[in-house]
């Protein structure tokens, strides 16, 4: 029971009054910036970094980490209420969250995402407490070929993310992949599709892309259809906020699957919360017997991605702290913050800095409980956002989007990129070309290309490298099955009927 002793020591650190205070500041700030579209954890943590230089390292990391996971709580609020994702990890929550709000269930959606966020986060914290040493080793099993295989599988799954034509979904995935090519090719150093523009040499900014496609396009198309009437919302009572028993029953299996997917994505360096939420949504749609209902406001469509992105931000600390491998750019900044304080994460960190590691783990619990306590009562207030007159609201949204995109690199070039994608996104919305698969293609495309070329270099050109390990072989099989399933409709129908029969016979297990 060494773990319990450690955890006790950890809580002794996390419950010091200054650590509680900074944890509170961090998660509150995280919720706020998550709520504001465009401004994400990355730019906030980067901007806060200098302030923490003269703080105790444990306190500093507790606060900065709080911003990161707090943002995941806040991010879904804007997705649900305004159909504009607070961070790119919440983009997929728009698909069912906003329809729920339109159906008068905004309060339920907000309550449900808060609860699933808490469950997802808590699960990963438990994994972190008990499995960190084993998981750190597991992450090393993933080489170039494994990353390639898993990214291809993700991409195929992504084409069915949205409602409507799978063909259009797949076409948008490819557009996303192509947009991901822009900039310097890591493998050769050659600049591709940058048209001589220096700012494009690191590629397009994902925040500018997401805010153009989801934020500006949403505001614009709303205004195009707007004839002057305010949003109608019903009076919000606490009764109308609470999910029904049916909601809980429907969303529980999704929450569980979402948190497992999210936890795995967090552990794998390079995956991160955005991929986690997309994957969880795609998996739900696959698992559902009524995939056609997705996109109309089903609870499964918000529970899974929100459990996933919160699980992934917590589990992302595992490789960061125990291997010194930052899973994504936010983790890289946090790693930088540790290094500034002379703490170099690695396998010895847990032994050499127990007060930091266990104090941080304990603070995650504290932070998640604060977030739960903070967010649930505030739902009534958040829903009031819809009462703000739309003419003031859309202007404020435009402002926050602009400032958020600017803060990524302190470069106005990204504002113009966002403007361009706002125009593209508006026409995509009008013509029903889905933006969510595009965004996922943009994230996974570079992963696929880089790892494919790297794997072929490492294998000296042997293609068998993509099927000769257990991980790659499994992914290859899953990819082929998914592809056949999506595009061979007779077979899909057949399998669907077979599944129906099977799950009917399993109906008593309670997983329906």
């Amino acid at each position: 029971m060494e773990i319990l002793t450690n955890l006790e020591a950890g809580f002794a650190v996390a419950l010091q009054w200054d650590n509680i205070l900074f944890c509170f500041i961090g998660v509150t700030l995280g919720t706020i910036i998550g709520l504001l579209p465009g401004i994400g954890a990355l730019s906030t943590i980067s901007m806060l970094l200098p302030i923490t230089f003269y703080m105790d390292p444990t306190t500093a990391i507790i606060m900065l980490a709080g911003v990161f996971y707090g943002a995941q709580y806040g991010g879904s609020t804007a997705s649900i209420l305004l159909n504009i994702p607070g961070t790119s990890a919440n983009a997929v929550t728009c698909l069912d969250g906003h329809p729920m709000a339109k159906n008068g269930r905004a309060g339920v959606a907000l309550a449900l995402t808060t609860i699933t966020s808490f469950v997802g986060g808590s699960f990963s914290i438990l994994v972190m407490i008990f499995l960190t040493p084993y998981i750190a080793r597991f992450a090393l099993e993933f080489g170039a070929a494994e990353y390639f295989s898993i990214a291809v599988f993700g991409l195929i799954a992504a084409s069915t993310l949205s409602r409507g034509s799978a063909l259009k979904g797949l076409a948008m995935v490819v557009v996303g992949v192509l947009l991901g090519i822009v900039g310097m090719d890591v493998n050769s150093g050659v600049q591709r599709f940058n048209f001589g523009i220096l700012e494009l040499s690191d590629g397009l900014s994902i925040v500018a892309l997401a805010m153009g496609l989801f934020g500006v396009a949403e505001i614009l198309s709303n205004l195009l259809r707007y004839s002057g009437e305010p949003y109608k919302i019903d009076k919000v009572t606490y009764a109308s906020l609470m999910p029904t028993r049916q909601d809980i029953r429907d969303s529980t299996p999704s929450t569980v699957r979402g948190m497992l997917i999210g936890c795995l994505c967090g552990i794998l360096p390079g995956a991160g919360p955005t991929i986690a939420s997309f994957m969880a949504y795609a998996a739900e749609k696959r698992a559902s017997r009524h995939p056609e209902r997705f996109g109309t406001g089903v609870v499964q469509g918000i529970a899974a991605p929100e459990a996933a992105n919160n699980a992934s931000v917590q589990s992302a600390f595992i490789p960061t702290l125990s291997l010194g491998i930052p899973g994504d750019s936010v983790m890289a900044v946090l790693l930088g913050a540790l290094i500034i304080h002379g703490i170099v994460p690695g396998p010895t960190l847990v032994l050499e800095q127990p007060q930091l590691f266990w104090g941080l783990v304990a603070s995650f619990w504290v932070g998640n409980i604060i977030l739960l306590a903070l967010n649930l009562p505030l739902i009534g207030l958040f829903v009031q956002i819809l009462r703000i007159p739309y003419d003031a609201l859309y202007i404020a949204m435009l402002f926050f989007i602009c400032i958020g995109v600017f803060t990524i690199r302190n470069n106005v070039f990204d504002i113009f990129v966002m403007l361009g994608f706002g125009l593209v996104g508006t026409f995509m919305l009008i013509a029903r070309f889905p933006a969510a698969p595009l965004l996922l293609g943009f994230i996974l495309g570079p992963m696929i290309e880089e790892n494919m070329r790297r794997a072929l270099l490492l294998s000296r050109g042997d293609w068998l490298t993509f099927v000769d390990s257990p991980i790659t072989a499994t992914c290859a099989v899953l990819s082929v099955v998914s592809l056949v399933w999506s595009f061979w409709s007779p077979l899909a129908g057949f399998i669907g009927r077979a599944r129906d029969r099977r799950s009917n016979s399993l109906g008593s297990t309670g997983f329906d």
Partner: protein
Amino acid sequence: MIRRSFIALATAAFFAGPVMAQDYPVRPVTVVVPYTAGGATDTLARVIATPFGEALGQPVVIENRAGAGGAVGAEFVARSDPDGYTLLFHTATVAVYPTTQPNLDFDYARDFEPIMLATRAPYVIAISNKLPVDDLEGFIDYAKEHPGELNHGSPGAGTSTQLAAELFKQQVGIDLLHVPYGGSSAVLTATRAGEIDFMVDTYLGLKGAVDGKDVKALAVGTAKRQAFNPDIPTFEEQGVQGIELAAWFAFAAPKGTPKEIVAKLNTALHEALKNPKVLETVEAQGEVIGSTPEELGEQVNMEIDLWAKVAKEAGVN
């Protein structure tokens, strides 16, 4: 302290007349870091900024302008007013641009006034644990017995880290397959997992893996052993002559900045580099240099030619 800088600020606002070199500085000085916040370069710049500001009598503000391997920030400073209020904190990468980004309209000698090569961080050679060798000579022999079979991981094609490793390979005459990754931490992960056999990086990134015995640190790229880990031997001790491999960090101002201001900045930096917090940060990865402006200019010139030659021989574009 806070009071003093407040008064200084207020005074600056009142007397912000024409810029005179002898009055400099009358307002806060901005140092542009051409990389993202939180990275190794940014960290170092921020630690130096506080004592630098104290020595100047005006706060020094760090501004991150990342992009294109540092070229975006460098270009921003080159276009700024040469009044000493906008400076660049740069790395040896400025000597690589002419080779790897020939389309870039970038000319260090034409665009910048060197101020000081402030600190350097030696590259450390690290290899995978799965290789049956424990020292540099053993590794070189092993690589010569297995030409083309070992993998060299780098944080990207055409990065200064790759070129440093290529210089080493050329100098000792070994043939390793270059496999680019998207960043140093990805290379380290792959080396740890055994996917990559050979890498170079500064000690800041490697420390965790070296301490945890997950990779073997074979040599440090400077003439003397380093304080951060005196157990790592030098090249010369192991029979490799004639090369030094180190990343370095320097300050520069836009071309046309008055000589007096450059001199003032150099003096203030010398003062800042004596600060204990700065020393602690620098010595975790290398050593303080504190050069003259002329020495920095010469270093950049020398390296421009060096990397062009190394890249050509290695077949990098």
